[in-house]
């Protein structure tokens, strides 16, 4: 199912040398980065990063370890202040904003090393994600005004609705820290979705998942995109997932983009094969035999 969905999309060129899905062409891109870069005391961790994402695009960010993929996520969410370039979220400049404001504007993320509120229940984790969606003041909370009860009820219903995406409603009262690894990753995605993002950043969502779970995750990512109409940018080392669902892939090496394109283009790009993907075993074997 996932395979079919992706091959339906045709990528069309966008003015600044990027590609967006054909269906997103008329709409304003959700994310535009131009010449984005950050230096840590002379070390150029990310340099001249350009990307355009359509409002319903699934993009992939791949590259060897230390290439600067997570740093880009940290730049997009303003954990780091970029030293060069600009980030536009639906045309709005994110440069002067803080992490919290960026989240309110519509960028949500998950983390490579899972960051859940481990001592709280699964439902409470999602409710914290709903923080800015269903507000309720401190005083109505302390004085238990009717506003408190209606907000609590709304939060509960919304949290359950979100948890049902991953069939996790049965785990609502379990402590987040005692969940298995795969479920923790899914919960983190739910928590990010609870903040009603326009762009969802997933940092290695399939890490530590078995092939079956990864398969399910792929379907769920596409379902989330279709249901919430959001753009998703993901970092992943599992090539099956990346090639299976990403419409547009960006390959990084040493902080620079070395290739951009559709999965087919990336798979056949000699630069990418050299830097990251490696040769397929049969090819490599054949070469060895030739040498021998």
């Amino acid at each position: 199912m996932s395979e079919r969905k992706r091959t339906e999309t045709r990528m069309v060129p966008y003015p600044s040398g990027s590609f967006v899905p054909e269906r997103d062409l008329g709409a304003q891109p959700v994310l535009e980065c131009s010449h984005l870069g950050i230096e840590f005391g002379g070390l150029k961790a990310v340099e001249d990063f350009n990307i355009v994402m359509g409002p319903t695009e699934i993009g992939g960010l791949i590259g060897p370890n230390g290439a600067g993929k997570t740093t880009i996520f940290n730049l997009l969410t303003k954990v780091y202040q970029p030293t060069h370039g600009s980030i536009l979220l639906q045309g709005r400049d994110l440069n002067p904003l803080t992490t919290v404001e960026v989240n309110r504007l519509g960028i949500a993320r998950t983390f490579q090393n899972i960051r859940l509120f481990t001592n709280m229940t699964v439902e409470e984790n999602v409710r914290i994600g709903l923080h800015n969606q269903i507000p309720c003041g401190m005083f109505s909370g302390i004085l238990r005004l009717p506003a408190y009860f209606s907000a609590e009820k709304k939060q509960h219903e919304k949290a359950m609705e979100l948890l049902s995406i991953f069939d996790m409603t049965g785990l609502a009262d379990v402590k987040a820290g005692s969940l298995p690894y795969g479920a923790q990753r899914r919960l983190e995605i739910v928590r990010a979705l609870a903040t009603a993002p326009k762009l969802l950043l997933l940092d290695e969502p399939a890490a530590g998942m078995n092939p079956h779970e990864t398969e399910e995750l792929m379907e769920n990512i596409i379902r989330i995109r279709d249901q919430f109409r959001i753009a998703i940018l993901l970092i992943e080392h599992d090539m099956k997932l990346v090639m299976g669902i990403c419409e547009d892939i960006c390959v990084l090496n040493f902080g620079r983009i070395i290739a951009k394109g559709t999965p087919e283009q990336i798979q056949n790009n000699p630069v990418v094969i050299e830097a990251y993907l490696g040769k397929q075993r049969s090819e490599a074997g054949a070469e060895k035999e030739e040498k021998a």
Partner: protein
Amino acid sequence: MKRNSKFVSNLITYGIVIAAWLICSFWMGNGMSSSLKAMLVPICCYVVLAISLNLTVGISGELSLGHAGFMAIGAFTGAILSTWIIAAFPEMNKDLVLTLAVVGGGVTTMIAGALIGIPVLRLRGDYLAIVTLAFGEIIRNILNMFYFSLDGSRLFGSFGNPNIPGKMIYNGAMGIKGVKMLAHFNAGVLLILFALAVVLNLINSRSGRAIMATRDNRIAAESVGINITKYKMMAFVTSAALAGMAGALYANNFYSIQSSKFNVDTSIQILVFVVMGGIGNMRGTVIATTLLYLLPELLRDFSQYRMLIYAIMLILVMVLGNNPLLRNLWMNINPFRKPLKRRAKADE
């Protein structure tokens, strides 16, 4: 189901306080010793102080060592207010005067807490603890510079200048004298119930979850759009206000009180109550404070060893409480233990 169990747990906490109140009220009419009677209001004050400190230390996760400073602000504001109100409106109901004094102490301390919170909450961990310790001492020293006097029903105040007209009520480092001892046990219990209600309701609300999220994982909390400074401030200011109210009640229980009472020792003592009762555990805090406040009186002969015993107990609780071997042992001998999750899963 989860929320129901929390609700029941909170009811038990309120129930324990009300039961203790009933027992003590009955006992007071039937031969409670006068030394114990004199301790009832201070116990209530320390319970409220410990609950409020547990909000900062346990729920918000910031180690504050200056809680006695907030208590001092509340105490002097409360005592001056009650003295002045009685002088100005002699006809007023005494409980109303006490309520006004306690509320006034709370509001003043709330403002002070907000002012102190702005610089202090920029720090984290050990640095925050050190700075709160310093602020506790700074508050105490600043309070030594104030002078208040009553001329008939008019209140005069000055900073650093003892030459003000009328009868001196608050004389700098000499402290306050002639307080009308309005506090009584029932008021103390009411204040405990109020503090418990504020803290427990806050914890189980959207704001409380945001405070705990900030404590558990700062980066994740920011990533879901929680304004960290706002919620740390909320916990800190609420905690300060409750401490101020407890201080006001405390001051109204004594004829005279000096600022030297509110030194680091008092701050540490409140922290000991919180740690012994369980960090983040309000019911435990109430029980531990009561017992630890009574113990030195019951063991009066060993009173000089009190701080020594505190230190040893504190270390034992911190070291043994986290020992997995002892935890397992406790799990096995505890008759009220909850079944282990793993075991429950295996049964399925």
